[in-house]
C-alpha cells in the first residue's frame, strides 16, 4: 500500500570505535540509559512522528539486533501494512554483495522502498541519541520544495572541524558542504539525518552505483553530487539534545547527560516517550545499607552498596560495601560486596568480584593523558584482587588493552 514517507535506518555499521562493547553485536543494539538500546531512539522517533514503515539495514553481527527488534511490537511497528523490516544484504540473480556503503545499502533495497510507493524517504542513523519529530522536518521539506532536507544543528565554532559542515544562504538552502573542514565556513553540522524526495534519491542512487570510483556514501558522494547538480537542498535546524554515540567516551557522556538536569536529555519527559522491549523482572530493591544519589536505576536491581552519579541497568546487583561512581552499568552485571567501580562502562552480565576494582577517578591519575574511562566487554569476569586500570579495556577472554 502507498505510504507518504518510509524510514530507512542504517544499522549495519560495525561500531569498531566501541571496541569490546560491539565484539558480538551491532552498535545500535548496545544498551543505553538503563532500560533501552541505542536503536530505541530512532525507532521511537519514527513511531512518535507517525512513520509506520521502517526498514532496518543490518549487516554486522545482526543476531542480537534482530531478536531485539523482533516483530516491532514495543514500538507499535507490528502493523498489518508496513511496520518494521530487517533488511540484510541478499542474493539476486546477478550476484550478491555486502553493503558497500550507506548509499549502496539503500540502493540494494530500492525494491523494498518501491513496494510502498512513497513520496519521501527518511534516511536515519542507528547510533544517535536524540528525540526528534520527523513529521516537522517532513513539513519543512515539503514547504521548501527541496530534493533533500538535511537536519543540522549549531555546534561551537571550535568543534566545527570535527563535523560535516553545511553553509547556507538566507533561506537556509545549502550552498556548500564540507566534510570535517580545516577552516569551517559555518557552524551548522550535519546530523546524518536526511529526508529525500524518493524520485530524486532513487535516480541519484542508480547513478552513484554506476560510478565505480564512488564510495557509495551519503555524506561523501550522494549529497555532494546533488549539490553539484543544483538540486534544492534545505537545512532543517534542530534544537535539542543530539549525540552520536559512536565512541566509548561519547557513549559514557550521553549516559551521564541523562543524569544532568538541563542537558536536554530527559527520559522522564512523557511528551515524547522512548519505547523499548521490556524484560520481565520485579521492581528494584534498594536495601537498608544502600547509598544512592544522582543515579538512574532500572527495574530488577538489588542495590545494597553505594551508587553515585551512575546509570544502572536492568537486573544489576550491587553488593554491600561495593562502590559504583560515575559509571554505566549494563544489564545483568553483578558487582560483588566490596568491589570498586569508578569511571567505567561495565558490559552486560559482567561480574566484578569482591576485592576487585575497575577504573579510577581522574584526580588519582598522575598523568592526565593516561586517564580515561575503563571498559569491560559483555560477560567479563574480573577476579578478586584484579585491578582494571583507568583507560583500559578488557573482554571476556581477558584480552586487555589500553585505549589509544
Amino acid at each position, binding site marked *: 500500500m502507498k505510504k507518504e514517507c518510509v524510514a530507512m535506518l542504517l544499522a549495519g555499521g560495525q561500531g569498531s570505535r566501541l571496541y569490546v562493547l560491539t565484539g558480538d553485536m551491532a552498535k545500535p543494539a548496545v544498551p543505553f540509559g538503563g532500560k533501552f538500546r541505542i536503536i530505541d531512539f530512532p525507532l521511537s522517533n519514527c513511531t512518535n512522528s507517525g512513520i509506520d514503515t521502517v526498514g532496518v539495514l543490518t549487516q554486522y553481527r545482526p543476531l542480537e539486533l534482530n531478536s531485539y527488534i523482533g516483530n516491532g511490537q514495543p514500538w507499535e511497528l507490528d502493523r498489518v501494512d508496513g511496520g518494521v523490516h530487517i533488511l540484510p544484504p541478499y542474493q539476486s540473480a546477478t550476484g550478491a554483495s555486502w553493503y558497500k556503503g550507506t548509499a549502496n545499502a539503500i540502493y540494494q533495497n530500492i525494491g523494498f522502498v518501491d513496494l510502498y510507493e512513497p513520496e519521501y524517504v527518511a534516511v536515519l542513523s542507528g547510533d544517535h541519541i536524540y528525540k526528534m519529530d520527523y513529521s516537522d522536518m517532513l513539513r519543512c521539506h515539503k514547504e521548501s520544495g527541496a530534493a533533500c532536507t538535511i537536519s543540522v544543528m549549531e555546534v561551537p565554532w571550535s568543534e566545527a572541524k570535527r563535523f560535516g559542515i553545511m553553509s547556507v544562504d538566507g533561506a537556509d538552502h545549502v550552498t556548500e558542504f564540507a566534510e570535517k573542514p580545516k577552516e569551517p565556513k559555518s557552524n551548522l553540522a550535519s546530523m546524518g539525518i536526511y529526508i529525500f524526495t524518493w524520485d530524486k534519491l532513487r535516480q541519484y542512487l542508480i547513478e552513484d552505483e554506476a560510478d565505480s570510483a564512488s564510495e557509495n556514501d551519503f555524506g561523501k558522494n550522494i549529497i555532494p553530487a546533488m549539490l553539484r547538480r543544483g538540486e534544492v537542498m534545505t537545512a532543517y535546524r534542530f534544537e535539542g539534545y543530539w549525540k552520536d554515540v559512536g565512541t566509548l567516551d561519547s557513549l559514557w557522556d550521553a549516559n551521564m547527560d541523562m543524569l544532568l538536569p538541563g542537558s536536554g536529555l530527559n527520559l522522564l519527559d512523557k511528551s515524547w516517550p*522512548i519505547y523499548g522491549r521490556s524484560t520481565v523482572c520485579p521492581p528494584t530493591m534498594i536495601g537498608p545499607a544502600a547509598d*544512592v544519589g544522582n543515579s538512574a*536505576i532500572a527495574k530488577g536491581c538489588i542495590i545494597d552498596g553505594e551508587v553515585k552519579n551512575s546509570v544502572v541497568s536492568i537486573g544489576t546487583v550491587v553488593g554491600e560495601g561495593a562502590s559504583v561512581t560515575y559509571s554505566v552499568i549494563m544489564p545483568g552485571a553483578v558487582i560483588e560486596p566490596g568491589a570498586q567501580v569508578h569511571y567505567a562502562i561495565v558490559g552486560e552480565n559482567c561480574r566484578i568480584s569482591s576485592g576487585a576494582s575497575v577504573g579510577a577517578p581522574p584526580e588519582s591519575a598522575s598523568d592526565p593523558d593516561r586517564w580515561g574511562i575503563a571498559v569491560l566487554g559483555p560477560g567479563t569476569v574480573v577476579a578478586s584482587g584484579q585491578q582494571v586500570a583507568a583507560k583500559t579495556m578488557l573482554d571476556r577472554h581477558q584480552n586487555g588493552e589500553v585505549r589509544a
Partner: protein
Amino acid sequence: MNGMHGIIFSYEKKTGLRELIEHRVHGSIPFGGDYRVVDFMLSNMVNAGITDVGVIMHGKCQSMLDHLGSGKSWDLSRRKGGLKLLPAFAYTEHREGAGQFRGKMEALGCVKDYLSHIRQDYVVLCDSDLVINLPLDDVLSEHLRTGADITAVCTSHLGDSSDTYFKLDDAGRIVDTVRDVHTPVGYRCLNIYVMSTELLLRLVEDCMAHNEYSFRGAVLQKRGATLRIGGYVWDGYAARINTIQTYFQRSMELLRPEMRGELFCPSRPIIGKVNDAPSSYIDPTGECVNSLIADGCDIQGTVKNCILFRGVQVEKGAEVQNCILFKGTTVKSGAILRNVITDKYVTIKENGTLMGHESYPLVIARNSEV
C-alpha cells in the same frame, strides 16, 4: 493428557479493602510495586505451560479489562485459545438480568458453553485475589500421581475464622471441610482446585439441576464423601488480600529478601503488564533506603521502608516512611507521610502531614488532592 486449562474468578467481594476497591475488583488491586494481584495467578498458569485461560468477571471490571487487554503481556494473545474474558452479560440471561452469581458453580453454569469448548483434559480453578508463586505443573503432577478426583491447594498457615479449613487424613485426602469455626484448625483452603474437565462439566450440570451454587457447599462438603478430594499443601508465600491491614502487612513483607526470594523466584517469573516507563531517578538531594521501587520514579526527597509504584514523584524536602504509593502519586515538597497508602494519581500538597498507624494505615482514594 493434553495439559491444563485455567479459570480465574474475578468478582466483587465484601471485604475490608475500603477505598482500594471503590473502583476495582480485588484482582486488579496494585501489589508489589509493579503488579496487579491477578498477575500472580496468571503468571503461575503461564509458567506451568497453560495457554488457555478464562477470566470470569462481574462487577467493577473496567480496571481489570484495561489491565488484561488482549493478554499480550502474558503471551496469551493467541490465534487459538489464549485469554478469554467472560464478563457479566454471559449469565444475565440465565438469572433473569440479575447479573450476579451466588457462587462459583452458578458462575460456571452460566458459562457452560465456554466450558464445553475447553480443549484440555484438566482444569485449574482459582480466585484472583491471591498473591502466590505456585508451581501449578507440580500440583497437576501430584493430582495425577494420587489419582484424586479433585486436588485442592491448602496451607498450614492459619488465617481467620471466615476462611475455609480442611481436615486431611494421613494419605493426604481431605476428610472434612469447615468454615466459620471458632478456632481455626487443620489446613487453610487457598481456593485453587485441579480436576479433570470431564468431572467439572459433570459437577456443573449436576449442581445446576439441583439449584446448588457454591463450590464449597455443593462440591467439597456435600459431595466430599463420594469424591476423592486430595490436599496439596503449599507453605510458601501466599497472601489473600482481603483487608487493608493484610494488604499493608503482606506488602511490607516484600522488603525482606527471603520473602522476595519466594515470591519473585527467577525460575517462575511473575509477569506484569508491559510498560514503557524509563529508569527511576534518584536525585543528589534524595535519599532512598530499604524500599522497593518500580520504573519511572523521580525521588528528590527521603524515602524509607516504602513500596513505590511506577512514576511516583517525591519532591525535595518531602519525607515518606512506611508507605505504599501507587502509580502516579506526587508528594510535594515538605510533605511528611507515615504509614499511608495512596491510590493512583494522588497528590499530597506542600508541607502536608499524613500519619496512619502500622496497624491501621491511612488510605487516600484515587485522584485525591490532600
